[in-house]
């Protein structure tokens, strides 16, 4: 566990370093945006001094590192609010979106994959595979745009085609506003998960334990559920773990497309404004989010896989 935490810290450090130096490579500085269009060089310099942008790069890096290590992500250049506060406003939205999307698609994928494997080579199986393949391949931003069109222009009022409704304001509206983005965000997850499960369940037919189960006259249901499905969950879980990163990536697209005020939007906005502290904070927290999600999936994986569980407990 300790080792893992250390590894995570190293990864985050690399990410931070990367992002920091990339940011500073950018031409110009946020000062130009702050001072407005009619500023004198002296004014710009004074703003830069105020932001600490005039110091040598390494000094800036060290200060920033020191600050972040103490848990202080700084303040947004534009709102003056603390970055952590800004993040706390946005993080739950992305989190919820991702969760809802996963909770919607993963069970569906598990069912589809299982049914397809059970009805192998039937039209049903073919349908699942075609839908699965399409769902992986279809460009999410395009599909999202078409859905906005569909629900905005042709089916107005059926589902909100964009925007965010707070849970407190209108719980039903809140759920409704999540439907389309969650649908698009997790679509690929469906295909990948269903495919993985299907393939691995079909493969499990040839395993010794399924054969032995048959030879012992176990009921079909038991074999499918306790042997084939249970064991196929392992590779499936591993794949889902990787998908979390994909979904985070997708949230940048989806949140902008559906106009959701989550981390993806924050990131795009803060970068557009060259709001360094906010952008660094957003990137870091997405990275942390990603690592945590992977940790959870790994724990889940360990829970499913006794071999790993033993080692996990041993650490």
């Amino acid at each position, binding site marked *: 566990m300790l080792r893992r935490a250390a590894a995570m810290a190293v990864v985050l450090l690399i990410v931070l370093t990367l*992002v920091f130096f990339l940011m500073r490579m950018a031409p110009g500085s946020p000062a130009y945006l702050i001072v407005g269009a009619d500023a004198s060089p002296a004014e710009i310099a004074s703003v830069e001094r105020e932001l600490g942008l005039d110091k040598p790069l390494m000094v800036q890096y060290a200060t920033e590192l020191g600050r972040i290590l103490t848990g202080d992500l700084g303040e947004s250049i534009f709102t003056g609010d603390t970055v952590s506060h800004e993040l706390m406003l946005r993080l739950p939205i992305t989190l919820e979106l991702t969760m809802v999307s996963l909770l919607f698609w993963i069970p569906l994928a598990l069912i589809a994959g299982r049914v397809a494997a059970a009805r192998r080579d039937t039209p049903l199986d073919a349908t699942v595979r075609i839908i699965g393949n399409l769902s*992986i391949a279809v*460009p999410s931003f*395009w599909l999202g745009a*078409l859905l906005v*069109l569909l629900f905005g*222009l042709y089916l107005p009022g059926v589902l909100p085609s964009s925007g965010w409704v707070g849970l407190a304001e209108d719980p039903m509206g809140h759920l409704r506003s999540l439907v389309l983005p969650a649908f698009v965000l997790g679509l690929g997850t469906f295909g990948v998960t269903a495919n993985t499960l299907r393939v691995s369940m079909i493969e499990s037919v040839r395993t010794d334990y399924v054969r032995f189960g048959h030879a012992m006259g176990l009921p079909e249901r038991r074999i499918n559920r306790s042997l084939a499905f249970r064991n196929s969950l392992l590779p499936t879980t591993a794949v889902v773990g990787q998908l979390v990163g994909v979904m985070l990536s997708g949230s940048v697209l989806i949140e902008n497309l559906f106009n959701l005020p989550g981390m993806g939007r924050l990131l795009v906005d803060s970068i557009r404004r060259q709001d360094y502290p906010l952008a660094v904070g957003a990137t870091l927290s997405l990275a942390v989010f990603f690592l945590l999600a992977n940790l959870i999936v790994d724990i889940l994986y360990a829970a499913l896989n006794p071999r790993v569980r033993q080692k996990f407990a041993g650490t």
Partner: protein
Amino acid sequence: MTTITSTRVRVGPRRRLVVKGRHVKGMTVIGVALVSCYLLLAIFGPMFTVDPLQRTGDPLAGPSAAHWFGTDHLGRDLFSRVAAGARVSVLVAVISVGIGLVFALPLGVCAGYFAGRWPDELIMRVFEAIQTVPLFVFAMVVLGITGVSSFHLGPIEVSAAGKIILLIAIAATPYFARVARAATLAEIQEDYISALRLLGVSRRRVIMDELMVNVLPPVIVQSCLWMAVAVFAEGALGFLGVGVQPPTPTLGGVIADATRYMMAGAWWYCVMPGLVLLVATVGFGLLGDGANDLLDRGER
């Protein structure tokens, strides 16, 4: 569209890839057909169509004999724009996957060869960091910061398209390297490696002549699948407005423009380029699956 493309699951003591059902061949053929269509469009489309930068019709005219895909909001022929965009996509995808391979192969093989020791740790940790920042986050950070126009990296000027290519290549590298590493790791357990070393074959030669032929196939499969991801990523970046910049038409850029005109009922504007993009992603995906089945031969 996702960046996780490999749904292959390795099961069992012998490393054997999952044998898919009998439909595999048909699917692969479809994949080849789709990719061929796409490549034909990308290579020859721009030669036989009107200039995608010239306004040759009314703005937002629907598909017709003169404009197969209709026109865009400025009255330019959508088909020629889509064809030109497809060309950009393919170029970006091919070059970025190529660059990714060039970086990933030696690193992945090196990591696999020194598995568990510091070169492996170092390489994998850096790749992990890259993978920790999702592609679009990474792209937004880089493109948002260095701007969407060309910039100077020391004495070298990196064009806007070059930047996107590099980005996709960097994002792909960890995936390729992981596959290469895993394949290397599996391969060096095989007896033939130690047998060859015993025979006095130099390490370099063992790696280049013997190991590589076995590491390449899974990496090629992965790169086929990444072609789909790269085409998608190029489109998505264009869609976010940080892709290859106008006037060069790109699929994502066209779709992004199209979203502004959807409420005017110009469905074709959004649908057509998206379908072409879909053809590419489905095609490359199926092709990757097919390559997987094909290149797996030779294993016992």
